[in-house]
């Protein structure tokens, strides 16, 4: 049982936790957070495979001790996940504003955005 195996197991657990939150939680923002947890778990699995792949060889003698290709893929994945999260959150906020405007016009919907004091 090495450190990488521990982190790999916690990555697997993160996938389970994220999946549960994604399926079960009714709130959309929490689904987005759970999606990020799920992604974090998957990236951890990549990282464990990368660390295991470099143990025998320190690439370029710079002390880097992992397989660089999965690590580069994880960096790419992090940025793409950020882009997806960003547009999901902006969609969610747009939806909240439109609901608020519709309820102000009195169509019976009861959702109001929290009033943010101090302008915005």
């Amino acid at each position, binding site marked *: *049982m090495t*450190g*990488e195996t*521990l*982190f*790999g197991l916690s*990555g*697997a657990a*993160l996938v*389970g*936790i994220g999946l*549960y*939150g994604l*399926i*079960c939680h*009714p709130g959309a*923002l*929490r689904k987005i*957070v759970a999606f*990020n*947890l799920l992604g*974090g778990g998957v*990236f951890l*699995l990549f*990282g*464990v*495979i*990368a660390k*295991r792949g470099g143990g*025998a*060889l320190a*690439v*370029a003698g*710079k002390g*880097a001790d*992992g*397989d660089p*290709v999965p*690590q*580069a893929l*994880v*960096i*790419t994945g*992090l*940025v*793409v996940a950020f882009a997806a*999260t*960003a*547009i999901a*959150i*902006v969609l*969610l*906020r*747009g939806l*909240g504003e439109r*609901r608020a405007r519709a309820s102000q016009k009195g169509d019976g919907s009861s959702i109001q*955005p*929290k009033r943010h004091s101090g*302008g*915005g």
Partner: protein
Amino acid sequence: MTSALVVDGLLALLVLGLALRVTFARTDYGSAVGFMGYGLLLALVWVRLAAVDVALTEAAVGTGLTGFLLLGAAARLAPGESFDAPGAPGFGSRILVGLLCGVVAAGLGAVVLSLPDPAPTLAPLVAENLPPTEVANPITGVLMAHRAVDTLLETVVLIPALIGIWSLASDSGWGGRPGSLPLLRSSGPLTLLAQVLPPFGILVGIHLVWVGADEPGGKFQGAAVLAAMWVLVLVAGLRRPPAVIGQRLRLLVVLGPLVFLGIGIAGIWLARAFLAYPEGWAKPLILTIEAALTLSLALVLGMILAGPPAVDRSDPKVGP
């Protein structure tokens, strides 16, 4: 049971504990704050996995920028429904889903425990092909030379995300300035921070990009720091975000990917393959691409954080 293993175990437990806290938090705000703590601990896990570049990216992009968006959404949206809301899955189906997710996690855990030994790896191949690129950081070499197509697509994908965010503006706000940054009433400490920190932040950001050629670093991490400094200035109200219809903004946003694409297409003639670098020109071309991309990425990330354009209510020409 070495001390390193104990530390790794504690770290893994903390990460999992925070993940559970994030999933079962009572408020969206608590979930967002817990997510940021989880992200920083995850960056520590990446350092333990000898992936410092990934740790920097996780801390900068995964935690910092995503956390900013989550906090903003949690503060402005109506309180999301909790687990007890009427539309939520009932207790029985939640138990069932929990069991199934446990099965998925157990399956992945079994995969982790039965990974092949000796581990298959591309590290020797990367080490062989790193010297022609004249960068010493193997991850930069992989990102910019061996898997440059991935990096090109990754930088290009941020632009449709930005366009998508801009397209969510209302009709009256179309093409205006983003209006959803949480501008507080003018606050002394925040103004001080926004005046003192950006010079150092810009230095740190450019240093991260420059040093990424030989040590852990890179343009995504540096661009995230630059974007954060820009957004700090915007949040403090010292500058207004640019109108999204501005030609200069749009030109600078596409400049980086265009340079990357242009050099890639030129590689078809000069080096016989798309995104191949001619002999001896690898380092200058990589530096050019990274410089252009850092500028564009910083702008794109900053504008993503700024949000969709909105009607400018403080503008006297515009009615309520």
